[in-house]
């Protein structure tokens, strides 16, 4: 009896410790974003009070207005949007049939090809610095959206193919065969059975590609030098480059840049929790 009781007490202590630790960790995780949001609504005068004034007394949308009235930032947001949607569309268009061919059609060596494709994910981006620069300049693609799309595909294609192949593998072959018995051809089988069943996985892969492209910084920094094609992350960096860093504006811009990632995140979270999220993000 006594032992039982002490065991229960120990368990309760363990639980309390776990929740306590997780609460602290969650605070550390959330705090930077909280601080960003707080800063973005703070009028500039309050930045310089000492000790810091954590909560503003005069909330303002001024920083947001300033950022959203900045034509360079707006243009960069638009560029980011165009690049990300194009990259997503092309990635899906290429990786869905490829994943289908390499998994569902049971080709010899299909698995090996997939592993090779995925392993390119782990190449250091630095090995592409110079060759991409030369190739893009040869084809007059520096400072263009197309050039960025080309560079980004090297990152998104492997992940998308791998993620979609993973979902394709989980569809029972019987369903596909039943469709074929019913007289469906390749294309109809793909559309009506495989795609429909793996739609969540495909959406996740698409969102992943979008987020990768949306937050990409390295290639955008190296291969765009004019506002014509510069994406939002790079323009954000230019807010920093000015002599006097306007942190209020910077934080407002960072909030705006983070917003489009929230929805994809909530969808993808489920996927990550199943432990498929090891593909990763480059940086």
């Amino acid at each position, binding site marked *: 009896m006594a032992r039982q009781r002490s065991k229960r007490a120990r368990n309760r202590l363990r639980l309390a410790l*776990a*929740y306590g*630790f*997780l609460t602290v*960790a*969650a605070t550390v*995780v*959330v705090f*930077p*974003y909280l*601080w*960003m949001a707080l*800063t973005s609504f703070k009028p500039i005068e309050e930045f310089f009070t000492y000790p810091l004034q954590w909560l503003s007394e005069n909330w303002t949308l001024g920083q947001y207005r300033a950022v959203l009235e900045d034509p360079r930032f707006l243009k960069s947001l638009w560029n980011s949007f165009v690049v990300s949607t194009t990259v997503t569309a092309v990635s899906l268009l*290429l*990786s869905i049939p*490829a994943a289908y*061919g390499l998994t569902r*059609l049971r*080709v*010899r060596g*299909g698995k090996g*090809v997939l592993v090779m*494709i995925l392993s*390119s994910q782990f*190449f*250091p*981006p*630095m*090995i*592409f*610095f*110079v*060759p991409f620069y*030369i190739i893009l300049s040869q084809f007059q693609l520096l400072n263009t959206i197309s050039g960025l799309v080309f*560079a980004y*595909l*090297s990152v998104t294609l*492997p992940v998308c*193919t791998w993620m979609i192949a993973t979902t394709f593998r989980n569809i029972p072959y019987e369903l596909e065969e039943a469709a074929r018995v019913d007289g469906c051809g390749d294309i109809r089988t793909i559309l009506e059975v495989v795609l429909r069943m793996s739609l969540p996985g495909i959406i996740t892969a698409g969102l992943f590609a979008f987020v990768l492209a949306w*937050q990409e*910084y*390295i290639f955008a920094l*190296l291969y765009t030098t004019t506002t014509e094609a510069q994406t939002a992350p790079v323009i*954000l960096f230019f807010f*920093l480059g000015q002599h006097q860093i306007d942190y209020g504006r910077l934080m407002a811009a*960072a909030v705006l*840049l*983070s917003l489009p*990632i929230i929805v*994809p995140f909530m969808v*993808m*979270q489920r996927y*990550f*929790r199943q*432990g498929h*999220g*090891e593909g*990763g*993000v480059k*940086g």
Partner: protein
Amino acid sequence: MTATAASLPPLRRRRHTWIAKGYLFAMPLLVVLALAVLLPALYNVVIAFFDYNAMTQAWRFAGLKNFVKLWDSPYFWNSFVVTLIWVVGNITLQLAVGLAVALALNSIVRFRGAFTGIMMIPWISSFVVVAILFLWIYHPQLGVLNDLLLRLGAIERPVAWLASPELAQLSLILANTWKFFPLVMITLFAGLQDVSTEQLEAADVDGANPFQKFRMVTLPTIMPSISTAVLLSTIWAYNSFTLPIIMTAGGPLRATEILGLFIYKQAFDSFDFGAAAACSLVLFVQILVVIMLYLRVLDKR
């Protein structure tokens, strides 16, 4: 994952007439990957053996000159060492934090989903935004970290987190750990699901304390996950670029100039394309060595 082919009824397995068709479906992707990944990667190898003159834009075969130049460059060796510290520091911290959080998550039932979701936030965060957030938090006068520590009385004067050569590397590693620990956490959490409850209970009956239980039961089971997590965080640490370039740009006094930044400067500050390509190969080889070690460890088990 590979079970599908094996578990199929034998009738379907002979169908290898679809081989050609399968690769036909994959062809567009393979062509684009060849153009966007394979070709540039090979091109990079070629460039490493050439000398580029930025003035005349002429290429000349240089043999091993670029590699010799690296070998003789104190800045390269500085970056080499800084990268090693960076990688080891990141692995250690990410593993410690990731393991602690994974264990805590594994021992609770209520709110597990919510906590997991929150913990994944850094990983999905944009690198630029993370860099800016920590730049702001570390700010010597206006930063909230100094403010907090001053209020708590932990420090007497504001600390220059990113501007002092001694602290800059550590501050960067902490920010990078914030960004990457979820990857380790989720990998280890998956591994923890394989730990057998019977064995834990048996250890309980034998009177083992929690620490012993962890060492004798949990740790051996999650060892494969730990190696995978170490591999992943090593690769990402070697591939780092965005956080350091925004937060310190390699400074102060090159104290945080990891190889990624060194390569960037070689290529786009000095326009020494050959040396940059050569250095990126050196980086690549280091990663390959790590992957080989990992496969070796896996083989042994």
